[in-house]
């Protein structure tokens, strides 16, 4: 039995079903990220764990206790909201201890808990201020402090970083990760930002239209996405999806694709479990298509591909190169100083070890 068990949970509003039998078992100390586009049901699921939304079907259990119908305050959870939801009329200190006060914890004990958490988050000097007098980053810290002070079983984060500016967001991301490593708490974290999901989580649930598309470690999700949807949602720029046909040449499986000029090109496949003659969608991440000098030296299957460059986009650390493969735009990630120019042919190195194949009809992964 897991620490937080989501068993066959569904949610409907009237006749509209917004969550379709979700099954997730979260172990103690895990950092689970629910990621997906807006409207995918991730916040609804979080609110159901919190008890802010009713459960239509199935069960949610925390520490073996089924909490369906249990009031939010009696689930021993704490939540950090996107807007932080700090009470505007109370000081930071009062904000953080409000929950303890409501649970009847005596004042000396509250003060001790407050002092500990304030020190941990380095907000001791802010305790007498009102939320309106704090910067965005400080509010974020106070919101986390308010959650920490209660020492809950499960922390719930609802897009906590999306109100911060880009730089602060990266800093706070690291901060949250540090905090998790230090406290080893169980966290369920909702975001639409796939980078947050990759960097923070121990496991990711990719959601779309009320379904969990894939549940796995960041590496599993990234390297072996279950579907075209997951493949293109996770990673930036998105994974290139190239229509291809499996063919046998010299007894070895190849993927036959067309290049920018419409000429056929053969890419030797590393995966052996594909039937010759069938159509596939070949998924190749941008970083698996590079200049030959930048190619992964540990790969056993680097294929050379000469193709016309459409656009180059120098981004500082890398240069992104757009070309046409299989009639669609494909993006390659090159070293910053690779000598490549738009309109010219270039010899790309494709790491076929990292390629995945999807069924064109069902868009689910068939290899590896």
């Amino acid at each position: 039995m897991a620490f937080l068990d989501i068993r066959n949970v569904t949610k409907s509003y009237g006749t509209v079903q917004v969550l379709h039998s979700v099954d997730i078992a979260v172990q103690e100390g895990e950092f689970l990220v629910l990621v997906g586009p807006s409207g995918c049901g991730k916040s609804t699921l979080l609110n159901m764990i919190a008890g802010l939304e009713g459960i239509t079907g199935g069960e949610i259990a925390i520490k073996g206790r089924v909490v369906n119908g249990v009031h939010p305050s009696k689930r021993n959870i704490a939540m950090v909201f996107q807007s932080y939801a700090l009470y505007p009329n109370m000081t930071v200190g009062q904000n953080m201890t409000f929950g303890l006060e409501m649970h009847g914890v005596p004042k000396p004990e509250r003060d001790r808990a407050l002092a500990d958490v304030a020190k941990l988050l380095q907000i001791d000097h802010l305790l007498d201020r009102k939320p309106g007098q704090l910067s965005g980053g400080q509010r974020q810290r106070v919101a986390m402090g308010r959650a920490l002070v209660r020492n809950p079983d499960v922390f719930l984060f609802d897009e906590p970083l999306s109100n911060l500016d880009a730089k602060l967001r990266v800093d706070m991301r690291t901060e949250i990760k540090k905090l998790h490593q230090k406290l080893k708490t169980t966290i369920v974290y909702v975001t639409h930002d796939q980078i947050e999901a990759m960097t923070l989580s121990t496991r990711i649930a990719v959601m779309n239209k009320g379904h969990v598309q894939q549940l796995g470690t960041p590496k599993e999700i990234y390297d072996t996405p279950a579907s075209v949807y997951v493949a293109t949602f996770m990673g930036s720029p998105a994974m290139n999806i190239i229509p291809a046909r499996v063919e046998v040449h010299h007894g070895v499986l190849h993927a036959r694709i067309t290049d920018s000029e419409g000429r056929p090109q053969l890419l030797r496949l590393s995966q052996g479990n594909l039937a010759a003659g069938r159509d596939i969608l070949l998924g190749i991440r941008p970083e698996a298509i590079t200049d030959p000098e930048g190619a992964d030296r540990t790969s056993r299957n680097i294929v050379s591909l000469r193709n016309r460059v459409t656009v180059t986009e120098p981004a500082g650390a890398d240069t992104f190169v757009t070309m046409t493969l299989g009639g669609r735009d494909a993006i390659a990630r090159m070293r910053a100083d690779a000598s490549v120019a738009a309109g010219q042919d270039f010899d790309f190195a494709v790491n076929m070890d990292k390629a995945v194949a999807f069924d064109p009809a069902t868009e689910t992964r068939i290899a590896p």
Partner: protein
Amino acid sequence: MAAQSHGVTQDTAVSTGRVTRALIYLLLLLFALFYLLPLYVMGINSVKPLAEITGGNMMALPEVWTLEPWRSAWSTAQIGVEPTGLKPYFLNSILMVAPAVAISTIVGALNGYVLTKWRFRGDTWVFGLMLFSCFIPFQIVLIPMAVVLGTLGLAGSVPGLILVHVVYGIGFTTLYFRNYYAAFPTELVRAAQIDGAGFFQIFWRILLPVSGPIAVVSVIWQFTNIWNDFLFGASFGGTSQPMTVALNNLVQSSTGVKEYNVHFAGAILAALPTLFVYIVAGRYFVRGLMAGSVKG
């Protein structure tokens, strides 16, 4: 000149502005004087002996200054058949207004809280019906209200008037508070729920402390309406009639000499409390009204 071509000095713009501004201020001043004229007439005639008024000098300053009309209006003037002055009726009004304003404001706040943060099936209908009550003219409810008051045994008493005004005011106060709380982030209520606060604790600790502006609107609105109400007071006042009814009895009495100076003093006395409320809380009124009216 270089400076002019860059638009830095703007000589003409400034001089035009000054003339226009002077005109605007002059116009505003004239309007202000015009609006203050009635108050001026009431004020100076209330400190004149009656002979000076009947002599035809309505606009002139008094030749003999006297506070006798005020004293008379407050404590000795003939109201109906009793020479009590307006004092007991002023107290009646206070006894009626204070609880009626307080109760209708608190109930309105609670309604607004429930209608926005504890939504239930059909809540928009409930709100719509309450809104509808704002448009019902006083006259329509007179007879049903009389029946209700009679049944409850509250006819002709201050508690009866309080009930009438609370019932009539709830529509307005609910409208104010609902619109104000609609803009209040629901996440705060959810956070408080997770923190373990109950229905009334959330209301008392989270929402009420930030309800100042809209509470001022509600209080001013209710105070003015209830204090100035004549119809309900005259219909249901019985032996505890409010200030407005007494003022009418003072001014309209048809026997004896018309003591205009006393009437003016009485009218000012009747208007003073609302004037006081506006001066004290007026600037919050507009602010709160705006805050409450933006979200619907």
